[in-house]
């Protein structure tokens, strides 16, 4: 059997995806429920003041946050999968998302509900979540590494979820509780330029660092001795990458709420399409993630006269596409 892992060369694929992303972004500006469901003619922008404000002060920042959310979750998923040498992890499985959620709820309850404070607390607790999962997995003495890491992640996530539950008990029902509940619900419908500006200082450097260090990821996914002999300081570089990826993730989560499955599915898709070399899969992951979340958020915005929680759409569509692609790839191998 001749194995042909990809039909399109990764470089061409990247250009295709980049063009696709630009096209999706451009079209998304005119997709919505104003003035009528689904589509707004570009001409309206010149005549209608409300349409202008809607596009410039709400849709644009929302689009950009959706783009960053997709890119960040996918990049973080890819980093976690490679660094931990475990194809089954994503931010939601390692205590990162739940840690961020706990940090946000904690902040709303006791410290303050200003976006910056929520973001900082979310980041700190997300890092704590990852650290706990990793340390626990290292301490345990049974099962393989992949299994231990997943189990530890599940345990830590459960701890933080329980913590969020407790905080909801203590919250003031008239003011804090609705705020926490809304935050946990997830979604980008309330995003404004201010939110985007608040997350950029963490997200852009995080993404840039992960992107620039992508070729080191290949080395870091080897075992320590091999990596070291190739001239890498594995501990430090892994730490740096993880902190960058997790901080960026926590920052976007602090605006969007927990959005699951993107970080797991997209890197797999990217590897399926572009091979295992992080040189290409990292940017492919980011682009696919961006396109994917922007499309899901468009659907969340237009399908009903109310917002559909983003996490539902990402899981549904992501899982369907994923299953489809895996099946078709299997067929390809059998031939």
């Amino acid at each position: 059997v001749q194995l042909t892992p990809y039909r399109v060369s990764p470089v061409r694929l990247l250009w295709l995806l980049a063009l696709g992303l630009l096209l999706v972004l451009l079209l998304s500006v005119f997709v919505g429920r104003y003035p009528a469901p689904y589509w707004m003619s570009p001409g309206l922008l010149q005549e209608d003041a409300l349409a202008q404000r809607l596009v410039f002060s709400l849709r644009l920042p929302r689009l950009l946050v959706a783009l960053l959310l997709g890119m960040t979750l996918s990049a973080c998923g890819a980093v976690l999968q490679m660094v931990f040498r475990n194809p089954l992890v994503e931010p939601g499985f390692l205590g990162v998302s739940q840690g961020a959620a706990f940090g946000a709820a904690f902040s709303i309850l006791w410290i303050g509900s200003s976006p910056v404070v929520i973001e900082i607390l979310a980041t700190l607790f997300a890092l704590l979540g990852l650290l706990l999962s990793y340390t626990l997995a290292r301490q345990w003495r049974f099962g393989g590494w992949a299994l231990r890491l997943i189990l530890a992640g599940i345990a830590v996530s459960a701890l933080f979820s329980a913590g969020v539950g407790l905080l909801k008990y203590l919250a003031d029902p008239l003011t804090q509780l609705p705020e926490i509940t809304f935050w946990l619900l997830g979604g980008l419908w309330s995003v404004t330029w201010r939110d985007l500006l608040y997350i950029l200082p963490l997200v852009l450097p995080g993404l840039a660092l992960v992107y620039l260090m992508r070729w080191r990821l290949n080395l870091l996914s080897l075992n320590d001795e091999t990596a070291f002999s190739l001239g890498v300081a594995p501990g430090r570089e892994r730490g740096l990458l993880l902190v960058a990826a997790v901080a960026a993730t926590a920052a976007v989560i602090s605006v969007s709420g927990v959005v699951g499955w993107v970080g797991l599915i997209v890197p797999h898709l990217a590897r399926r399409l572009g091979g295992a070399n992080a040189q290409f899969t990292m940017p492919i992951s980011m682009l696919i993630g961006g396109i994917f979340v922007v499309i899901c958020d468009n659907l969340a915005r237009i399908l009903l006269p109310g917002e559909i929680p983003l996490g539902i759409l990402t899981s549904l569509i992501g899982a369907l596409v994923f299953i489809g692609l895996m099946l078709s790839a299997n067929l390809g191998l059998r031939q």
Partner: protein
Amino acid sequence: VSHKLSRFLSWLLISILLIAIVPRSILAAPPGQSAVTCVETYTVQADDWLSKISAKFLGNALAYPALVAATNQQHVQDSTFAQITNPDVIEVGWKICVPSAEAAQALLLSSATLGGEVMVTDVLNRTLIFSQKPQRFVIAGRATTLLADAFYMFPEAGQRLIGVERGNQSENDFLAVIDPAYDDKSFLESIAGPEQIAPLKPDVVLLKSFMADKLGQPLEQLGIPVVYVDLENPEQYNRDIAILGQLLSNPARAQEILDFYQQRVDRVQQAMTGLTDEQKPSVLLLQHSDRGDEVAFSVPPAAWLQTTITELAGGTPVWTEAAEKGGWTVVGFEQIAAWNPDQIYVINYFSDPVAVVEQLKADPKWQELKAAQNEQLFAFAKDFYSWDQPDSRWILGLQWLATKIQPERAAKIDLRQAINEFYTQMYGLDPATIEAEVMPLMKGL
């Protein structure tokens, strides 16, 4: 090749950054949000009034709403500026912000702050001025039906309301009974964002105050004014009905409504004066829920309306210590048995509480309870909605509860009459309609 790619992707990142930052400075900030700068600050002297100051600085006595708006905006950042809630009342020493002529013009033209016809200060202490009476109202957020019920106590509500979330507690929509055109409204799903609200082109959106960050701010960025009301407990009812009265330019009706509620609260309070603690039975309110995957009983937080009306009606709520602050707390039978209260009231929002109580009475476990043995196990009364919640019907709930908890002292309360008065005076229904539409749904009276 990968160099090109690198460059392309770096360029992509940089352009995202640019797109993110540029419009903020280039695009004019939306009205109501724009930071007005004061070309002058003026301290109010004796015998000043706003139109005089306006004539002096802006050259037009009629431009005074611009002073109000500019000063109130400054007040948010700098509390040395006055907060003007009523343009007719200013005091000596107040610091007034005088905007530039252009800024004043912009303030006068922007929909949120134009002219002085309707002026309202909401629960977050924000003052809004509308040039004309707002005609198109949207009620958004969650559980808006209860808010809509309060809004409909004003006769003009039906014409003005254009969009609302459809209620989910009852198959029979109460608002469809009082407003024949109700089915023509735009119905929003439970989480409607600015994108879904904007097509309705509302003049004003009513929200509960906890929605301010999530929904209020984005709406105001669109230039859609937002007024916050809460209506969660009796004090908030007093305050917020008055706000709705201002907004609908019908303060007289607001006063009528407040008097109606106050008279009934007073009547119950008078009937209960002098009750000693021994004379107050211990009371447990339980919400029965068979939605989701299990049957559960839960008690409300101590700070909610249910506790207030139980105390007003002459009972001692037993659940307040067990209840957590955040919301309904599930309690097991053991806890209920440990309380073993004199009276138990079973609430069910989605189905028939009377049927639930019949089941409980047949349950040998429940028959052991003091309340069951003394026939003091009741279904909480409901018609379209259960009467225990922060809906306009809480006033019926209070009177009904008084007749149950303190039957002798509340003997003068005639519930049939109370129901008729409520639906006639608050919603303008005639007795025949009440008989045909409301009474058939009545449970547990």
